[in-house]
């Protein structure tokens, strides 16, 4: 969904006081991108010549964050917790250690906490001040997570933001927003959908998408 399609909430009232941000990255012009590309290349050349880093290091960093880390890691953690009650307990008690059992950890994942969705509680994660996000289990955050619209509004109007994602939460469910203001990073354990009792751990892993581990969607059977 684009977000533009959902101009009204479930009562039929408009729930946005402003139009979409015209400066969103997807609206950037090719000319501006080209100017940025040239400027960044010039700066990379200068800082490399100055000895702050070399090209091989930059290439390796890009490779790691573009290909090695991503939400598949988090999905493996969630699927394991769904099939293994002992693992789930360890994950809720000490997520950093339990996630390290699966081989995941590192920068922006030094202090991990997993928060569990239940029929009575729905969790959703944000960083209102910048873009803090659990890199080792989710990779780098999507653009919307870093945009003003999400960062500003999800703390005051989480149900409205969830509606932007097509996610409806019953009035009697408590919505818990987690604002990542320190170096603690939060991962949501979504509810395991009904009808998945016979799925294998691998099949469950494929059901768990990034947005469900941020908490803006639920896991649904395809």
């Amino acid at each position, binding site marked *: 969904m684009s977000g*533009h399609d959902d101009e009204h909430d479930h009562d039929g009232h408009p729930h*946005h*006081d*402003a*139009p*979409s*941000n015209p400066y*969103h*990255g*997807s609206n950037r012009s090719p000319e501006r991108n080209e100017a*940025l*590309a040239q400027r*960044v*290349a010039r*700066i990379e050349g*200068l*800082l490399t010549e*100055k*000895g*702050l*880093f070399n090209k*091989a*290091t*930059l290439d*390796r*960093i*890009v490779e*790691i*964050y*573009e290909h090695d880390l*991503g939400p598949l890691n988090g999905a493996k953690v969630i699927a394991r917790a769904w099939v293994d009650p002992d693992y789930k307990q360890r994950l809720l008690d000490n997520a950093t250690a339990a996630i390290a059992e699966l081989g995941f*950890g*590192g*920068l*922006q994942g*030094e202090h991990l906490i997993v928060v569990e969705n239940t029929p009575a509680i729905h969790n959703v994660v944000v960083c*209102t*001040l910048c*873009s803090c996000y659990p890199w080792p289990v989710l990779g*780098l955050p999507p*653009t919307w997570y870093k945009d*003003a*619209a*999400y960062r*500003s*509004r999800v*703390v*005051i109007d989480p149900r409205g*933001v969830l509606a932007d994602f097509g996610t409806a939460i019953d009035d*009697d*469910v*408590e919505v818990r*927003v*987690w*604002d*990542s*203001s*320190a*170096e*603690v990073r939060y991962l949501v354990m979504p509810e395991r959908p009904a009808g998945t009792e016979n799925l294998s751990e691998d099949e469950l892993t494929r059901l768990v998408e990034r947005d469900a581990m941020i908490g803006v969607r639920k896991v649904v059977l395809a």
Partner: protein
Amino acid sequence: MNGIHDMGGLTNFGPVVHEASEPVFHEEWERRVFAMNMAGLAFIGPIDRARHAIERMNAVDYLTTSYYEHWLAGLLTLTREFGYVTAEELSTGRAAAPAQLPFPAPSTAEVESLLRSGLPASRAMAITPGFAIGSRVRARNLELRGHTRLVRYVRGKVGTITACHGCHVFPDTNAHDLGENPQPLYTVRFEASELWGSDVMRKDCVHIDLWESYLQPCEERGSQP
């Protein structure tokens, strides 16, 4: 500082724009800006200083540029302020003189090792936390200069401690070469009605991590300090 980056609670930025199957990076220059910040962290860090460099952007620029342009702005500010480059070199792209680096750049293997091992913010300290789980606390209302993680939307508000994470490096000093000053870090739960207005009936709450010096005891709900 009270900056535009501290935007929790504003409602005028329109709907969240979700992009299906979004790539990790949209443009090659974004890859390079990300990698330069990560590789350069040894020279421009700690991360608190890097965050503050972005917070110091002109507010209009902050709102009208994209995410990796923020990272680029922070990188340029800090490399210039540390004297690694001059404004003139940045505009021409040509080095007029070698950089006076405090140490050689870490190798690719060293950088990779850092990414994989991380940089824990926790410190083993002989400090007894001043607040117990379940304590009622009020987030202080302080005139803060420089970097802080005490968001405006909780200042003066009353919440409940739900967790203590031990002692963590204090960003407000660490960003400014004033030391790590580790102190107890807590998760504090604030009800939506406390944060946003007594007429808010929604069953919502915000959990946020706050350092001990951001907090003061509050024995009674709604009582003044």
